């Protein structure tokens, strides 16, 4: 007897497991049972599980019956003609969805030729074992699976044309690649997803070579000439918005050129780019912290104002300015209304980002790297025919990652570029490497893709043949310009008196717990003290009661508010955070006292 569970609940037991499972499957294929039902026999626990619940990942497969695929050529033709559709294939029992547990009980053939009597299902296409982004990687059957994962992950970070209507969109952190190209080496998924309409990279010439150490550990070297010709150039968009909010008492924000008597008025220089309506004009070049939208708000606390204020109406300045450390050109201005009917002003600033040292680039195989140097074109190595690579890639990145597909793409790209055609690199179904090599030889190159190269600086010939070819390269969204940060002194937090956090506000760089442990382990006692004194303060302590004393700077007198009498008062230097801790302890009813004593 084998126990049967339905959606994790015990419902009974059956004598013959195969008969039971097969009859349920047959009923499902005949539409007597819902197609969302999956049944499986688990050998390990000796149980039958039936599931109809939500949240199971399922995938479609062609059913095989009596060693024959149920999807016939006739059917394929019908589908091609449009006489048959997906739903019909499922209701007719040609295709079914399996969940993970039922898939454990089935044997799936990758190709129709592979079918044996044991097989139960057939893949719709060999490509179907991969997802959309993963199947965009050409020749991926030649690489390591972990690299394939990373490769499909980096493709999602690539800059390209992310939406056809990007010109009227206000996306944060959006970038457009200026001269995006469709890849030479491609897979059928590029056609299925109409990749040509939203490409995300460029076909470039790369050489696998070390160049004066600038491309060690995943560094890459760019040809300055290529960058000047537009390689990897992108536009970075940053939207800013201001809303005329309504407050109680009929007061509203006002988008306008702020008056000079407004509270918090910056300087005339900061508002110079605004037009009469208080909004900047398209095409204006803006620098960091310059005002884009002039705006004033009503005073924050209305009640206090009426009684004490001398001036009748002091409005606050609340203009929108370019973020700290950013610059660009105003791209467009939208003036509209939001859902609540308030006036909404949106301004988009664009900044042309030319590749610089520290920007991130990647091929499609998880071989990402950071620009280590940009070399003048005259210094780039060149081949006998005078070709100078756009990019120099470190050969050390290949062996340990075993990305053979990376090398094949270079070869295939070279063939494609020379013969002027696109190369099909679909997984399991690509143009064979041997054929590519043959074709390369016919085109007058060495079949292994290597060429003689010369040192660009000395003109000397390299002693080895260098692997040169073309491949599709992507610029990733991580740019040095968005991450560069340093600070000497600056804003501090009100509560703790420690430097604030975050690059956008010019915050400090934290020396954390583990970094502290390092200094402790080295016994660098005074360096540690110095690094942590960003919030040091002087405290007056009453030696009698151990509490905080007060310094009356008006009368230049120190006294203890608790003891009143003339007590000894000493000054200690301590971190403000500790003083705060003592205060918090007092707040919940503990009274910490400081006993001072001379160390010696």
């Amino acid at each position, binding site marked *: *007897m084998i*126990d049967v569970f339905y959606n994790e609940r*015990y419902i*009974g*037991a059956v004598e013959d497991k195969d008969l039971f499972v097969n009859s349920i499957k047959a009923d499902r294929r005949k539409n007597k049972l819902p197609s969302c039902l999956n049944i499986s026999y688990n050998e390990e626990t000796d149980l039958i599980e039936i599931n109809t619940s939500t949240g199971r990942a399922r995938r479609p497969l062609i059913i095989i019956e009596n060693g024959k695929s149920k999807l016939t050529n006739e059917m394929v033709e019908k589908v091609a003609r449009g006489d048959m559709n997906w739903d019909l294939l499922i209701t007719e029992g040609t295709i079914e969805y399996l969940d993970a547990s039922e898939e454990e009980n089935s044997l799936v053939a990758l190709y129709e030729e592979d079918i044996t009597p044991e097989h139960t299902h057939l893949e719709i296409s060999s490509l179907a074992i991969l997802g959309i982004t993963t199947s965009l990687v050409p020749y991926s059957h030649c690489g390591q699976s972990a690299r394939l994962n990373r490769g499909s992950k980096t493709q999602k970070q690539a800059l390209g044309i992310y939406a056809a209507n990007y010109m009227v969109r206000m996306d944060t952190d959006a970038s457009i690649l200026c001269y995006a190209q469709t890849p030479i080496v491609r897979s059928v998924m590029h056609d299925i997803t109409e990749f040509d309409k939203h490409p995300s990279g460029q076909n470039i010439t790369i050489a696998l070579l070390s160049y004066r150490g600038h491309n060690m550990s995943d560094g890459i070297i760019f040809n300055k000439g290529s960058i000047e010709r537009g390689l990897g150039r992108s536009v970075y968009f940053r939207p800013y918005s201001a809303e005329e909010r309504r407050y109680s008492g009929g007061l509203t924000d006002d988008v306008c050129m702020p008056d000079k008597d407004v509270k918090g008025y910056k300087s005339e220089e900061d508002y110079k780019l605004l037009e009469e309506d208080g909004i900047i004009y398209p095409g204006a070049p803006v620098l960091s912290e310059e005002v884009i939208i002039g705006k004033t708000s009503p005073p924050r606390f209305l009640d206090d104002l009426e009684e004490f204020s001398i001036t009748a109406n002091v409005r606050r300045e609340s203009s929108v300015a370019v973020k700290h450390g950013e610059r660009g050109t105003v791209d467009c201005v939208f003036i509209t209304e939001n859902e609540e009917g308030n006036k909404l002003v949106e301004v988009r600033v664009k900044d042309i980002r030319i590749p610089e040292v520290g920007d991130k680039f990647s091929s499609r195989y998880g071989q990402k790297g950071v620009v280590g140097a940009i070399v003048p074109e005259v210094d780039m190595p060149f081949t006998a025919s005078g070709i100078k690579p756009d990019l120099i890639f470190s050969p050390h990145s290949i062996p340990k990652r075993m990305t053979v597909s990376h090398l094949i793409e270079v070869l295939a790209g070279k063939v494609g570029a020379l013969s002027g055609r696109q190369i099909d690199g679909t997984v399991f179904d690509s143009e064979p490497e041997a054929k590519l090599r043959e074709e390369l030889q016919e085109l007058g190159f060495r079949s292994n893709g290597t060429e003689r190269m010369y040192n660009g600086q000395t003109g000397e010939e390299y002693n080895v043949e260098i692997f040169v070819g073309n491949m599709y390269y992507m610029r990733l969204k991580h740019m040095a310009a968005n991450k560069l940060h340093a600070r000497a002194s600056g804003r501090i937090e009100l509560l703790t008196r420690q430097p604030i956090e975050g690059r956008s506000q010019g915050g400090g760089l934290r020396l954390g717990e583990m970094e*502290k*442990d*390092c200094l*402790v*382990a*080295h*016994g*660098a*006692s*005074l360096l*540690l*003290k110095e690094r*942590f*004194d960003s*919030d*040091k303060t002087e405290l007056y302590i009453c030696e009698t009661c151990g509490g905080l004393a007060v310094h009356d700077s008006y009368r230049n007198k120190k006294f203890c508010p608790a003891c009143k009498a003339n007590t000894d008062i000493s000054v200690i*230097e*301590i*971190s403000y*955070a*500790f003083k705060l*801790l003592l205060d918090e*302890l007092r707040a*919940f009813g*503990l*009274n*910490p006292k400081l*006993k001072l004593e001379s*160390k*010696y």
Partner: protein
Amino acid sequence: MVADKELIKGYSHKIPAKLLNEFEASSEEFNLTKPQQKEVIERLYKRYIDALINCGEAIGIVIAESFGEPGTQMTLNTFHLAGVAEVNVTLGLPRLIEILDARKNPSTPMMHIYLKEEFRKDASAARKVAARIKETKLEEVALEFAINLLESMVEITLNPRKLDELGLKASDIKLIVANALKTTNVKESEGLITIQPKKTGGNLIDIYTLKEKAKEIFLRGVKGIAQVLPVKENDEFVIKTSGSNLKDVFKIPEVDFTRTRSNNVFETFNLLGVEAARQLIADETASVIQNQGLDIDVRHIMFIADLMTVKGDVKGITRSGITSEKESVLARATFETPIKHLINASLIGETDHLNSIVENVMLNQPIPLGTGLPDLVIKMKKE
């Protein structure tokens, strides 16, 4: 040449006795002359002084980092060991955490049972002992557990061959089952045992849970020993078990209790005392680290074992363990549940003398370590 006793005596308070004994033996072996001996012992002394840890060295942090840095690699390595055959063992970081936290019940208790001289080499004797130790459950002597839906009862078909092996009769089993499941009627006929709840009208799920409960009924063996595996290790038969029960295993006459060990620190501590527990902590930690292909100096491991057992019982590196013994209130409050520590300290009016590291980092004072440890004291002339 005989070793120079006078020379050795002169160094007796400077160099540990073990090193001096070694020196004595070696100088006799290599026939050193007296001036040579003097040179050797001078160099030995210098080497010994160099090897000592300096005053103000931050050994605690160094040890913590020595564990912490390889520990980051360990997390990544654990999954390679998933699904090891034979006996399932917790390894890697989870096991290390278990040992250092001094958990009362390890997730996979295990024993290495060594046998006495006369049984050591005998495979059949080892197997016999193993069979006696193994905890046998009803599930193992049954062919099938079935639910009779009509009568709403559980039917167990026994395996006569297994019963023979164990020397049990079906009627014995009936008694054991009846004893274990008091709320049921148990009947036996021709190797078929039926269990029916006394209370009728229970639903299907109750019967199912009863069936699962019946599978777990304890028949014989040493309690807690789920699996036994006699293996040959260096020319002798050793029984590896999953599940640990040292006390009962020590009672078995064939077992060599001087060498038999468990991986359960608390069991070892209760039975064999704190020194055994210290050794076990050090050994287990070292074996976890070695298993991962990492290399941490044994002295680091021994220091941790010492720290955990220094108070005479086993204390984990947790807020209720060794951290609660710290002298400084602020240091205790820094590590987990600060409010609890601060309130308890204030109830008895504790004073923090700021003698250690964390407190001084907190107050932004120089820490008493390394360059912050020595002070310069000058006596000023009174005016």
